[in-house]
């Protein structure tokens, strides 16, 4: 009972706003020193680091793409040799998937989900900090290996036996495998945090049918991560075991199987596409209503479509393996399941079109990128329907047609919404608006450049140009289109350049944004920009799907949380009824040390199996340090 009395002495009840802000700030703000930054566990700080790091990897991956386009601009060019080219396309794919697309989408979730559900920090904030450091180490590992000319050269899919002990020379495939382990570890950690945050930390009253669509999409994405990633972690671990200690998982001569690799890889690899795509459509469903100033049409069908996509994602991996010689029945089954994914995609597209039709579009940059998304994503979706057909795929599989298809889906379907999202949430994250003029320029350059670059690849594929070739012979009729593509890529790059210039300029010199510059409806716009460390002065109470569009200026709020320790509100899964007050961990440097120890073990294990034994000792020490009770307020039960 003493706890009860003490806590009631330091709650937010009966404090005026200024005093409450002061007390909350004292409790929640991190230290500004170097070690304070290392120790930070604020979801916004971690997410900002994640996003910036992921965009750095986007720029690096883009440079690789440019190098490949220079090499392919003419037949038998000698700009890059075969060995380097194979490293470059492997790096490009691995980097874009594992170091850019998935992390950046999860980072947007780390930033936005706690704000949108109305809580003060993400669940397991120290795990969140740990995940960032692990991700960073994985990225650095991959890029250092590239600088040392030992980057993986077996494709981002690293098919055995090419990546196995017999044909994958040196340490290249091992670097790939451990980079996978790093990034999957961090992705899984973030996914768990998102699931718990969404299900248990929502503001009172935010029942399941009032969750913002972005949060729904992030929740489904997190579940897909949790179910898909173990497949590839198993796979990268067994590969390194085959290579390091002579297990024979993938050696047909010893009873292993090379197709097992492909099944495991695509059981992860196809859901991976939806891990990237689901957050993107969540962004579209959030941004689009704001720019027509009207709630989304068909909230329920859109949620159902998100869930259906997440479930179906696990039923169509075999369409990446249509030419391995499948039984006919399996071919028909996976053709049908792959086609079926068009239905949830269609549901969402039609709901967006209906929302646009019913509202009054305001043509700002975020909406332009959303419209660009609809145009290109429909193309990508339709070519997806094409490659879902086994006989169609027999001709275009592993050709530039597929390269075109997945760039339409990944750039048109995910990067366009992401850029829309950056333009949209940049004011919230930095407190400053991005330039509308540069925004329009970057949109048109990216949109036109993208289509001119990738559309002709469909034709190249049908004309017989395979993927992953470092050159082609002059007598093949592909030279003209390849040159055209390489020139168009320059337009695409200049569009991204304008975007990055805009980000850099606006960060320091953008127009102040205020709380809610777009007159949006979701909770993240109910606080100052950028948000204070504690997010909400008082936890909002939600009684509608679009809480900021309900007429009144003031949100109803709940009070009773302590101000002398980090505390947040736990609510029930379905109705979001308040259940308990829960302490939220303080800043700590231990996640950083734990990540360092984990990195040492993983990198060392590229060279020696003993790393697993000796390397686990520092990990154990750092984890003990991490969880050791420190006798602070947050340690009270």
């Amino acid at each position: 009972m003493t706890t009860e009395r003490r806590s009631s002495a330091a709650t937010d009840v009966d404090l005026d706003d200024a005093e409450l802000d002061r007390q909350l700030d004292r409790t929640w703000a991190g230290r500004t020193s170097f070690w304070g930054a290392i120790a930070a566990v604020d979801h916004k700080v971690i997410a900002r680091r994640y996003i910036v790091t992921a965009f750095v990897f986007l720029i690096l991956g883009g440079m690789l793409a440019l190098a490949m386009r220079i090499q392919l601009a003419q037949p038998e060019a000698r700009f890059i040799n075969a060995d380097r080219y194979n490293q470059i396309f492997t790096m490009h794919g691995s980097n874009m998937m594992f170091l850019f697309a998935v992390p950046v989408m999860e980072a947007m979730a780390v930033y936005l989900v706690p704000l949108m559900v109305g809580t003060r920090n993400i669940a397991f904030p120290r795990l969140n900090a740990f995940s960032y450091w692990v991700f960073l180490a994985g990225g650095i590992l991959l890029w250092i290996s590239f600088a040392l000319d030992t980057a993986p050269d077996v494709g981002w899919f690293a098919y055995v036996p090419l990546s196995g002990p017999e044909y994958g020379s040196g340490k290249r495939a091992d670097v790939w495998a451990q980079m996978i382990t790093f990034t999957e570890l961090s992705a899984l950690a973030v996914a768990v945090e998102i699931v718990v945050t969404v299900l248990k930390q929502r503001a009172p009253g935010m029942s399941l049918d009032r969750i913002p669509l972005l949060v729904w999409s992030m929740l489904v994405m997190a579940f897909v991560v949790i179910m898909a990633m173990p497949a590839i972690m198993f796979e990268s671990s067994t590969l390194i075991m085959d290579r390091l200690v002579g297990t024979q998982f993938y050696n047909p001569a010893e009873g292993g199987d090379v197709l097992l690799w492909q099944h495991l890889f695509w059981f992860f690899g196809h859901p991976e596409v939806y891990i990237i795509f689901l957050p993107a459509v969540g962004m579209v469903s959030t941004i689009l209503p704001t720019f027509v100033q009207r709630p989304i049409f068909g909230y329920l069908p859109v949620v159902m479509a998100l869930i259906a996509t997440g479930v179906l994602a696990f039923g169509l991996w075999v369409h990446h393996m249509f030419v391995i010689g499948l039984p006919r029945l399996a071919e028909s089954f996976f053709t049908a399941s792959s086609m079926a994914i068009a239905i949830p995609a269609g549901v969402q597209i039609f709901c967006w079109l209906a929302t646009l039709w019913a509202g009054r579009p305001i043509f700002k940059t975020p909406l332009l990128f959303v419209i660009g998304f609809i145009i290109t994503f429909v193309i990508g979706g339709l070519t997806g329907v094409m490659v879902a057909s086994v006989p169609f795929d027999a001709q275009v599989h592993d050709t530039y047609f597929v390269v075109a298809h997945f760039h339409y889906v990944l750039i048109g379907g995910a990067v366009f919404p992401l850029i829309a999202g950056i333009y949209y949430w940049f004011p919230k994250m930095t407190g400053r608006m991005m330039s509308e003029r540069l925004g329009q320029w970057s949109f048109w350059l990216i949109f036109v450049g993208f289509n001119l670059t990738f559309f002709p690849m469909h034709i190249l594929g049908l004309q017989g140009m395979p993927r992953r070739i470092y050159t082609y012979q002059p007598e093949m009729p592909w030279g003209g289109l390849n040159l055209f593509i390489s020139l168009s890529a320059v337009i695409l790059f200049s569009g991204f350049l304008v975007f990055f210039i805009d980000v850099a300029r606006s960060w320091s010199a953008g127009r102040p944004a205020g709380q809610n510059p777009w007159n949006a409806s979701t909770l993240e716009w109910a606080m100052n920009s950028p948000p204070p460390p504690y997010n909400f002065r008082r936890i909002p109470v939600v009684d509608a799907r679009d809480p900021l569009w309900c007429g009144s200026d003031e949100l109803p709020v709940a009070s009773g949380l302590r101000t002398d320790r980090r505390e947040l509100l736990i609510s029930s899964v379905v109705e979001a009824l308040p259940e308990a007050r829960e302490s939220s961990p303080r800043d700590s440097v231990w996640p950083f040390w734990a990540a360092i120890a984990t990195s040492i073990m993983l990198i060392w294990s590229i060279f020696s199996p003993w790393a697993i034994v000796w390397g686990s000792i520092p990990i154990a020490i750092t984890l003990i340090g991490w969880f050791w009770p420190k006798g602070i307020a947050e340690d009270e039960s």
Partner: protein
Amino acid sequence: MKTAAISLPLLLLLSGCGGVQSALDAHGQTAILLKSLIIFVVATCFVVWIIVMLVLIWSLMRRRDGQAADDRSLHRRITIAVSGAVAATALIISGLTIASFYTTRGLDPARDPDMTIRVRAQQWWWQFIYEDADPAQSFHTANEIHIPVGKAVRVRLESSDVIHSFWVPSLAGKQDLIPGRENVLTLRAERPGVYRGQCAEFCGLQHSHMALFVIAEDEESYRQWASAQRKEGLQPREPEIVAGKALFMARQCAACHTIRGTEASGTTGPDLTHIGSRHTIAAGLLENTRGSLAAWIADPQTLKPGNNMPIVPLSADELRQISAYMDSLK
């Protein structure tokens, strides 16, 4: 048949060492079937895209004065429109699934093929074995096969190292060659011609330079070619070629290559018994001339870095003699 006999050299002339390699330039039974499916599916999808784009433009551009006051009836109308569109989507993809299914049924491997060729893909070339009930009639070749027009040819696909993919787009769709497994593909050329193919599954350093050629010709020409291939390598008479042969046997060459009728019986590299009769060397890398043979033998690692043929130090005379010998093996 006669036109075919005339048109074949013409085709060879026109295509150089290019050959046709395009899913849209279909000359095989399977490829023609696939092409019509591709056209049907692409056309359907194009129409769908146009409709969606028209709706998008309409949604963005429509005049909005006098917005319907009755929000409920508006909502009902939109609901009907969206439901209709979803139903149409389901119908269209069902149609495409059925079309795909029936096309697949037409692709079943021929039950009693006219002939069988075994393919063993290796980093980075194709070994072909013409099988025959009588083992003496069976023979090997590399990177180039001849088939009779209009006959169903069963291709048995195997790999001796990593995964490759056999793809001659003008004749048929691709099929992987997987170590430890065997796949089967049926080729049936409807017209004579030279059809180029290429490995379609990333298989390592020289994946880009792993081409093959299928030469479809009338039955008579095919028979002549096959019986020529069954013969042993020619015994040279010219002194230069005799010297070349002696060198071939004395240096490393014979350890990796077979020339039937000689002591050379290595199996690591391509069978060279009739290398002079092929149109290209090094899996489509170079047109087969005496000059390019010499260039290849002198420095295979510059022309195709990383391939498994070592540089054998030869003097200029030796190089000339060996390439003359190769060239003579018609």
